[in-house]
């Protein structure tokens, strides 16, 4: 749900590495098309298959998983390491810590002096970054293919030898950088505090997703060098990481390099059990208001749904698109196109490892009340719940979904990150075709069923309002 990075490049804030880009195949004849009176779109589409990604996966004796994918199209290589720890593994009172720690991984290690991590990579033509979500932390470099040994050298040194080079001065500097990141993403951004307000209402106290990845200022202030050392010793070990190499390299040489650089890093102690929170439910509709320095109010609806890659994840993702992707989507067409009472609408299913949410956001146009928006949103949802969706609506989403898969395979970085995501969430990197097939398999009945199953349940409704306009909040007819 939240993703926060070391620098702004490659950042997809508030999207997941594998999210609504998952794409499906569909071949069908659509009677609805005839009504358009335009002949250029064929009645059936030739299937555009999602290619299989050829991968090799193995594990070093110290537990490090390695995934290799050769693609010699461009003479570059993408190295991507996922550590299986995220903000969901943080302790209450130390929110934001996993991400603060991520920043410290770039500050040098025993054999790499402070600042040299970036200096060496840039001198070799490389770019790098990292990001943190609730569930995992990743680190990656894209380099000309001759520089693969450099990336492995730097990544192995910080995996095996980070602590000797760490001191409180580095923690203090990156703590302040991260506080500025929080200001830039949250505190100095209109509607920026909406997400954390919703999380704290949706999830019970102590739930791993009840705080934002970026954390609170107070908890960032509280983080100590000792916390950093303990976190490293607990989570940053080869047996809690997966290294993916994608792009222009030779697998045999790469395996030798991986063995040389990572083979001598000792396996870490057994990992602590990860949180296994109970399924989240909202007992009754919860209405909240947040005053902010904004010109226009915005209404956020959030329902607890399902984890990523579970049965209803794909139908809910399709439902989100049917509601808010494109001019013909239900909410967009009614609120933005026909009645022009809203400036924008968004909807998404966001499944993570431990839980998922379905969210709808609407910003009313000037002079339009959130209450009116609310009534229109409820009517549109009721229509889908009662009558389901059309074949054409399903086809549009499935066809667009399938094309977006191709876009996600265009770069070595994105491909490597996708392989790591599949490996982490479903246990195998070789999953892109099965992922695409999930969307293929969605039926109109599925979409109607998930709308009824999840969106008729109690939800959290937050209205962000201009300061002094608390009375604008949506509060009303709850079940």
């Amino acid at each position, binding site marked *: 749900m939240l993703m926060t990075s070391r*620098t*702004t490049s490659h950042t997809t804030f508030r999207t997941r590495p594998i999210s609504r880009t998952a794409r499906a195949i569909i071949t069908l004849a*659509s009677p609805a098309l005839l009504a*358009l009176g*335009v002949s*250029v*779109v064929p009645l059936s*589409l030739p*299937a*555009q298959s999602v*290619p299989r990604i050829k991968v090799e996966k193995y594990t070093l004796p110290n537990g490090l998983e390695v995934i290799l994918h050769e693609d010699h199209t*461009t*003479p570059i290589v993408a190295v991507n390491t996922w550590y299986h720890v995220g903000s969901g593994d943080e302790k209450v009172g130390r929110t934001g810590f996993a991400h603060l720690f991520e920043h410290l991984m770039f500050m040098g290690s025993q*054999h*790499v002096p402070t*600042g040299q991590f*970036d*200096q060496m990579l*840039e*001198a*070799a*033509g490389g*770019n*790098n970054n990292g990001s943190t979500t609730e569930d995992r932390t990743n680190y990656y470099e*894209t380099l*000309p293919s001759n*520089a693969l*040994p450099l990336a492995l*050298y730097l990544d192995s040194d910080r995996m095996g030898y980070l602590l000797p080079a760490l001191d409180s001065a580095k923690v*203090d500097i990156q703590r*302040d*950088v991260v*506080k*500025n990141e929080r*200001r830039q993403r949250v505190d*100095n951004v209109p509607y920026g505090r909406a997400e954390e307000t919703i999380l704290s209402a949706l999830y019970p106290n102590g739930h791993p997703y009840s705080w934002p990845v970026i954390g609170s200022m107070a908890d960032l202030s509280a983080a100590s060098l000792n916390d950093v050392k303990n976190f490293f010793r607990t989570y940053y070990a080869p047996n809690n990481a997966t290294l993916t190499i994608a792009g*222009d390299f030779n697998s045999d040489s790469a395996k*030798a*390099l991986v063995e*040389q650089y990572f083979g*001598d890093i000792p396996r870490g102690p057994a990992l602590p059990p990860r949180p296994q929170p109970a399924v989240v439910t909202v007992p009754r509709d919860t209405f909240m208001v947040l005053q902010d*320095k904004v*010109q*226009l109010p915005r209404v956020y609806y959030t329902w607890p749904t399902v984890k990523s890659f579970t049965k209803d994840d794909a139908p809910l993702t399709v439902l989100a698109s049917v509601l808010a992707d*494109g*001019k*013909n989507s239900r909410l967009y067409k009614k609120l*933005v*196109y026909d009645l022009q009472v809203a*400036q924008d609408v968004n909807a998404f299913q966001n499944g993570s490892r431990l839980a998922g949410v379905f969210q709808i956001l609407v910003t009313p*146009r000037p002079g339009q009340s959130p209450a009116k928006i609310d009534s229109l949103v409820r009517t549109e949802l009721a229509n889908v719940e009662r009558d389901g969706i059309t074949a*054409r609506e399903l*086809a*549009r989403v499935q*066809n*667009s979904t399938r*094309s977006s898969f*191709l876009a996600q395979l*265009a*770069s070595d970085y994105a491909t490597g990150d996708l392989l790591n995501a599949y490996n982490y969430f479903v246990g195998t990197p070789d999953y892109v075709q099965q992922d695409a097939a999930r969307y293929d398999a969605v039926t109109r009945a599925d979409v109607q069923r998930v709308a009824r199953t999840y969106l008729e349940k109690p939800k959290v409704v937050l209205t962000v309002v201009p300061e002094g306009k608390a009375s604008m909040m949506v509060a009303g007819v709850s079940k």
Partner: protein
Amino acid sequence: MNNALLSREGVKRGAMALTLTSAVSLAATLAIPSALLAQVDRDKPPVLGPPPQLNLPPVAVRQLPNGLRLMVIERHKLPVADFVLLVPAGATANPANGAGVAGLAAQMLTEGTTTRSALQIADQMAYLGVRLDANSGWDATTVALSTPTAQLDSALALFADVALHPSFPATEFARNKQERLTSLLQIKDRGPAIADRVFPAIVYGTDNPYGRPASGTEQSVGAMTVADPAAFYKAHFIPNSATMVVVGDVTPAEIEKKVGALFGAWAKGTVNPVTVTTPATLPPTAIYLVNKPDAAQSSFRLGGVGVQRATPDYFPLQVMNTALGGSFTSRLNQDLREAKAYTYGASSRFDMRKFAGPFTARAEIVSAKSDSALIDFMQQLRAIRDTMPTAELMKTKRYVELELPSAFETTGDIAQRLADVALYGLPLDYYNHFVDNIDAVTQRDVQRVAQKYIDPAHIAIVIVGDSKTIEAPLRATNVAPVTTRDIQGTPVQ
């Protein structure tokens, strides 16, 4: 490097390769047999082999009888193709009182054609699974299509229809106009967006096209009618100044045939060139403060008039700016972020356009450190005019040279490079010589362009932040006089 990445048609495919090897390349050694590396010495970073060659198929150039130029690069990794139709007129071609027209003209292309309604266009885009959108920049308006090749014919027909037969429906325009006015209203919420608007207004003045917001103002958009974007389209969408860039799983012959069938009847017109006269120098350095009450950060934009894309100083400027604020290890980012932690990131950029676009250094600074950051920014702008240490120069040149292949990774990346070649009239073999040209940059060149284009005594410093906490400390720095402006950049009494 002898090669032609972007070569003319007829050049044998693959015969000319961009070789990213250079005089400053890392020590070239043979790959070391793996057995010898078994005991890795972590005190020494690995010695890298020679940088790889970037071999791209040549660009095939064709011209339709109506003058439309085609530039095609084959890329068969995935069953997709990217098309960019580029018309060399953007926001600078807006009428003097019509800021925002070009952008709305682009937006209106997908709002209805002579045979398709806005909803039908949207329906077909989603049904075909294609991305189709039109955008307007400073110098050009583009219509871009990204499609799986399985849907190529249908997608191209839709693409040609929105590009050639837009009908500018008045009702759709009215909706787009209200949407634009609302988004202009929402700028008030965001300090960084206010700074991005005020900075060019100060540097160029609002009498200059580069000083007026490309997205328009409440006044200019408010006064607009559907006739304005329609007139923009009519004046500038002509084949004899346009270029179609195509990259993907296609062949030039196939593209020439398909594009010729769809765009061949597009009638020629009169080219309406645009000229922008940019101010020679700015007045003495001054701080323009815009109040954003209670802002957690101050949005800094410092700089002035930069340089046009066609400058002979392009390569020295690339090196100089990369060292100043164009990479993570650049001086501004290292100082303001990694050493002082005043910000999440600081950077600088020469926005090179057809005419001299701005040079801008920027950062979002924690409010309490606004004064310290101002002093540091000024120090860095002065220091870059000194001789650049050799090690820094070498590192920067390597970075610029060696990261080039990643700019040619996806079909979208390559299409963007080609669109720049077309728009700015770069030679087709431009990228063949890119590495050589960077390599040739000397310490003296870097210092010369720094002194020529960065003059700390004549820059505009726009700071959008919480006046009640930052104004007094900013004044106390005595860096420059402080005047206050509103969110349009107009003086506040």
